[in-house]
């Protein structure tokens, strides 16, 4: 089957890389494939012969899977892969992306040796230029993170930049980052090499075969329908690049893969008279929005402009990306930027302006994983112009996912299930990618929010809160208040408030936090995912006991904090479950769990018409009343005693609030502060809110936002799923053994792993760090992902951070590992190990001393006693 393929690959090549564009068209040998009939069945069918598809095929076959078919509608490596600029860069913002790129780099490096196919791999290194101090901070942050995962890089001066690259104008630079092991490579050749290696391992590759749709029965992939016939299969992998969205929709039960293409331009020049050395480093000038690499003695330069041109919104499905229009006028700002950076280019002759569409996703991260609705339907697409860098690593993780059921790293940030159908509107995607594409080269500062595609899901109180000065952030399409700007206060404009330092809302959030501590605040938390599980008999309890790690057989009205673990004991979800009655449960999960948690529950729940799972997220508005005075507000509104004796902590009761009946009141606040969550049927939302605000007035009530909540919860060492916890962290690793029913003799998913961990000890431990010598006003603020050093040794990274207004210090949460000094192997982390270290947190290259804590600061829990609570017994000696 792969003979034709090899013959394509083995054709004589006098020239490298780009010039084989034309020769790739002469697919005389490829024509042979037409005569070959498709197999009737296969284990896996992969759609797409670009770098993603071939990488998945390569890795699956390496892992020993046989019976894999790869289908390509045109020719191999003929889509974005063919036009890719061929820059492999490991300098990424997410650690998982850095790891994928690092693996890709190593894979491509040895690919030529492995397959004998020339890939044009040249280790050139790359230089990221900083024209501003803020850009340099951003680079320093990346630099710190690259170093701790073993990718060499350094911050260098403009002078050094000039030495590394002779043609650069460095006068406007403040510094740069040099990553010496980055490379350039011909992506089309990499794809062909991967395909060749895969076919040697038994993967069957067919080109000019289009998939019409994927066949699904009972939520499981059963095969694919192509223009050349059907193939039965168990797994389907959608690596269709820009066409992944359309392909996903072509199913009877559509799979939503939110991505959208934008035109992308780069310029090719003829060679210099004295050609550039082939190992001249690649330049990324993000402030100038351009990248530059050497290309056959000349220059290849493109960029990510401010005004991108989205295309194919209507889903125009042409076979391959034909040469789209060159648009010089559109390229003009990038050309100006290029000539400013390399003035000597003026005299260089133009060869071509290439227009190659790239795909972008709504959050600038790629999409991988299994569809939440169709089992066996995997996706790897939406590379945001980094397909070559991610190709190897992403293919590997997806292959692991398919073979083992989960990848070896936590890839939640890239998981398809972070999206739902709500992100799949064409209009939304078109608008959002126009923001995402420029963002690739924009400065990424903490707490940045997307501006497009907003106000999709809102609470019924949205307008009320907005009128009171709410500033909004978006999570999973839902608008959530960040903080409330008082009427007399003027915040900086959006552009100006981009800072790595103390933000302009500092005092606003401070006053909200203070109000939470001393009086009472209301936070609209309607975005949280809410499920109800009911059954006629004990089925609900039984299945939940198996799916959740904590004991749920509690008296009616009790609330249980519990994890939903995987086989490895890692958190798939962290939620609060209230037992509404013997047979029904109310489950509250993070906002972005709506799709993932649903899919997980559906996967394990038996087909039983007497067991009902319902998503009631939209039915309830959630108000969080935080603060010591919440009790007073609520008892005044309900004429019911709300004191701890009558309404103990972690308790849930349906009661009336104001005129409205049937409000689910829960004594918890997600922050560790006293107070209540009110789950209000949406038609009562405005009424209850108004009542709470008017009654609360005499108790000093005010609105608060998520920033206040975040500060409160981090100060109290409350870990959140998706930020601190992921699929690779277990309850034991974050000190939550008490939330696991290990000793109850009940089976649940992850139990074995936890038992083993209990016996062997944990290899990492969630720790709270309080920054000691950090000046809030003058120093850079921590964000997340900062390396943690123990006695000068790297031990892990922070996962979230916030300023603790009570402690008056910055607080970071993060995992501490114990790497062996000799072998680098992970060793057991004990409480003693944690307590006996001297810690430092590295913020953009500057280290700050930190105190490590395994338990929250207890003084925070002793609430200030209210004056009218003082009684005689307080005078008694204890």
């Amino acid at each position, binding site marked *: 089957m792969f003979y034709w393929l090899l013959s394509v690959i083995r054709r004589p090549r006098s020239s490298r890389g780009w010039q084989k564009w034309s020769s790739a068209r002469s697919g005389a040998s490829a024509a042979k494939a037409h005569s070959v009939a498709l197999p009737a069945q296969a284990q896996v069918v992969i759609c797409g012969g670009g770098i993603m598809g071939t990488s998945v095929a390569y890795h699956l076959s390496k892992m020993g899977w046989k019976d894999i078919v790869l289908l390509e509608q045109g020719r191999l490596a003929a889509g974005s892969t063919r036009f890719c600029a061929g820059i492999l860069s490991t300098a990424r913002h997410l650690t998982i992306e850095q790891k994928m790129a690092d693996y890709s780099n190593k894979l491509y490096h040895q690919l030529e040796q492995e397959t004998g196919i020339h890939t044009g791999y040249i280790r050139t290194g790359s230089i990221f230029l900083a024209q501003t101090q803020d850009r340099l901070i951003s680079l320093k942050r990346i630099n710190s993170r690259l170093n701790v995962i073993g990718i060499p890089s350094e911050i260098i001066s403009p002078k050094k930049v000039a030495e590394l690259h002779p043609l650069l104008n460095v006068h406007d630079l403040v510094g740069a980052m040099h990553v010496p092991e980055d490379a350039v490579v011909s992506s089309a050749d990499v794809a062909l090499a991967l395909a060749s290696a895969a076919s040697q391992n038994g993967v069957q590759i067919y080109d000019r075969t289009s998939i019409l749709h994927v066949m699904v029965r009972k939520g499981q992939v059963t095969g694919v329908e192509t223009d050349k016939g059907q193939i039965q299969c168990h797994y389907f992998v959608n690596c269709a690049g820009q066409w992944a969205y359309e392909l996903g929709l072509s199913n009877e039960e559509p799979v939503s893969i939110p991505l959208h293409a934008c035109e992308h331009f780069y310029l090719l020049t003829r060679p210099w008279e004295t050609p550039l050395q082939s190992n001249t480093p690649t330049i990324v000038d993000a402030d100038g929005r351009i990248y530059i690499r050497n290309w056959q003695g000349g220059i290849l330069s493109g960029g990510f402009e401010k005004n991108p041109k989205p295309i194919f919104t209507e889903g125009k499905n042409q076979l391959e990306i034909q040469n789209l229009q060159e648009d*010089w006028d559109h390229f003009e700002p990038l050309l100006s930027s290029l000539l400013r950076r390399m003035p000597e*280019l003026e005299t260089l002759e*133009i060869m071509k302006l290439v227009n190659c569409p790239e795909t972008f996703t709504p959050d600038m991260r790629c999409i991988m994983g299994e569809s939440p609705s169709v089992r066996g339907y995997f996706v790897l697409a939406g590379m945001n112009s980094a397909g070559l860098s991610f190709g190897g690593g992403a293919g590997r993780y997806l292959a692991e996912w398919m073979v083992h059921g989960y990848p070896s790293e936590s890839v939640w940030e890239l998981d398809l299930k972070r999206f739902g159908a709500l992100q799949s509107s064409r209009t939304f995607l078109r608008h959002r990618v126009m923001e995402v594409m420029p963002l690739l080269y924009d400065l990424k500062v903490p707490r940045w929010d997307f501006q497009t595609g907003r106000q999709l899901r809102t609470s019924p109180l949205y307008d009320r809160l907005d009128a009171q000065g709410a500033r909004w952030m978006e999570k999973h399409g839902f608008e959530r208040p960040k903080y409330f700007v008082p009427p007399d206060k003027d915040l900086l404009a959006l552009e100006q408030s981009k800072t790595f330092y103390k933000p302009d809302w500092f005092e606003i959030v401070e006053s909200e936090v203070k109000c939470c501590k001393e009086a009472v605040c209301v936070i609209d938390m309607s975005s949280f995912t809410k499920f109800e599980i009911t059954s006629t008999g004990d089925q609900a309890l039984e299945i939940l006991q198996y799916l959740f790690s904590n004991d749920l057989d509690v008296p009616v009205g009790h609330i249980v904090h519990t994890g939903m673990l995987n086989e490895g004991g890692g958190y798939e979800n962290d939620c609060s479950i209230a037992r509404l009655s013997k047979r029904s449960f109310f489950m509250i999960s993070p906002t972005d769990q709506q799709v993932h948690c649903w899919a997980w529950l559906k996967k394990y729940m038996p087909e039983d018409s007497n067991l009902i799972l319902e998503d009631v997220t939209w039915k309830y508005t959630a108000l969080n009343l935080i603060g010591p005075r919440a009790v007073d507000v609520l008892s005044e509104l309900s004429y019911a005693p709300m004191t701890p004796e009558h309404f103990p902590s972690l308790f849930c009761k349906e009661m009336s609030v104001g005129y409205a009946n049937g409000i689910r009141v829960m004594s918890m606040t997600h922050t560790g502060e006293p107070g209540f969550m009110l789950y209000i049927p949406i038609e009562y939302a405005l009424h209850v809110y108004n009542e709470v605000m008017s009654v609360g007035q005499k108790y000093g009530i005010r609105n608060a936002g998520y920033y206040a909540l975040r500060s409160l919860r981090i100060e109290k060492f409350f870990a959140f799923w998706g930020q601190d916890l992921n699929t690779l962290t277990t309850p034991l690793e974050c000190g939550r053994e008490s939330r696991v029913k290990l000793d109850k003799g009940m089976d649940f998913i992850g139990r074995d792993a936890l038992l083993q961990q209990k016996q062997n000890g944990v290899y990492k431990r969630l720790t709270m760090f309080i920054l000691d010598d950090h000046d809030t006003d003058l120093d850079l603020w921590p964000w997340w992902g900062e390396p943690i050093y123990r006695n000068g040794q790297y031990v892990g990274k922070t996962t979230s951070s916030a300023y603790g207004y009570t402690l008056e210090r910055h607080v970071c949460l993060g995992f501490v590992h114990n790497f062996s000094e000799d072998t680098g192997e992970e060793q057991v982390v004990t409480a003693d190990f944690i307590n006996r270290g001297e810690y430092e947190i590295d913020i953009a290259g500057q280290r700050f001393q930190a105190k490590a804590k395994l338990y929250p600061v207890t003084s925070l829990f002793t609430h200030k006693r209210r004056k009218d609570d003082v009684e005689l017994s307080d005078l008694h000696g204890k």
Partner: protein
Amino acid sequence: MPAPTQLFFPLIRNCELSRIYGTACYCHHKHLCCSPPYIPQSRLRYTPHPTYATFYRPKESWWQYTQGRRYASTPQKFYLTPPQVNSILKANEYSFKVPEFDGKNVSSVLGFDSNQLPANAPIEDRRSAATCLQTRGMLLGVFDGHAGCACSQAVSERLFYYIAVSLLPHETLLEIENAVESGRALLPILQWHKHPNDYFSKEASKLYFNSLRTYWQELIDLNTGESTEIDVKEALINAFKRLDNDISLEAQVGDPNSFLNYLVLRVAFSGATACVAHVDGVDLHVANTGDSRAMLGVQEEDGSWSAVTLSNDHNAQNEREVERLKLEHPKNEAKSVVKQDRLLGLLMPFRAFGDVKFKWSIDLQKRVIESGPDQLNDNEYTKFIPPNYYTPPYLTAEPEVTYHRLRPQDKFLVLATDGLWETMHRQDVVRIVGEYLTGMHHQQPIAVGGYRVTLGQMHGLLTERRAKMSSVFEDQNAATHLIRHAVGNNEFGAVDHERLSKMLSLPEELARMYRDDITIIVVQFNSHVVGAYQNQE
């Protein structure tokens, strides 16, 4: 000295295009307006007859003249930056998009852009736009005032109500009248689309309402009982005439409130032309009184643009108008009724609202002025009776109504006061708007092909192209774009920033020498809807 030559060039050009009302009277009239409007002699192209010349010539003209000279000899003072130019051009721009409802009941109008650039201080042009709520259709109009802004202001507030009422069926009129009678809430008739600078007079509101009510009461009384199809053309004509009649009556009757009394007199003694479009589905009616113009932009099959005029100017250039005037008055007046291309040698537009000086008998004029407030009495202009004034009225507000059935190739309608038309040819107007709206301003794309081009050469070329295009990118409003061209175009039809900057930085008292008030409304039609109408038949 190149700069002065350039500065005076428009003056020469404008003189050749000589038109407009003998505005010299303005200077005697200053207390009628908020600030003294002033038109230098040289721009007026006023009647050369020595008697009138001395009578009308502003006392300060010699001063003005020297000022002009001095200005011309120090030309380098006025430079506005592009953002300053933009803030001047955009100060009065307004855009309205017709909201869409899920594909249902879609209007044949996509929306409109409008804008004004003052030359007089204060501006004497007005504009109005409104959607009829009780009938279908949208009303848009431009109003060019003269001898002050009082009349154009009143017409801009009132005319659409008269038109809307004329269009209302009998039952609706009854319903409204009953509501007024019984103190219930009134049916809204018009949804106005106003720029914040477009104001309505609060003081006169009650007076205007009463006049309007009298009108609809008469319409109700006149109704014969049989429900006849309302004819838009007739409705437009009736509304125009009725409003002008009311203006005239209000001035004769006066008002106990001295402010209002003075106001109605100011309205009646000043004048205004009106050009109003009524769009309902594919039916487009244009009612025109005076020398503003409605121009339809038609896109030919090859993509080129052609202009179709939907109104006739009522001035000396229109032979039929001259004929009409001569026929309406005795033969012995044939020479005096149109003289120096003006009505009675004075007024440029041959039809207008207000201007009772050309409508009332001499007796009536004298009576009203004598019984009027002192300000009126002291005013030389109002007291002055036009020469050869034998058989009034010489002037009418009756509009000429044209009907056009919209076709898919009819892309937009430009309504503009003569300030635009005297500086730009209609063909250029339509081409500039057409290219702006369709994004055709993009020049042919560049392709390198097999040529040997260096990056430097390409960069130079692109920078040049961008500079050319910048004027387009600066405007979000077709009317603004048109004004930019009207004021800033050089000999080659391209916007010249230097020229634009000079024109806009002219001191208040000089601006009128170089340009007139410009008011533009560009209505965009919905070709899909228009096409659908066509297919229905």
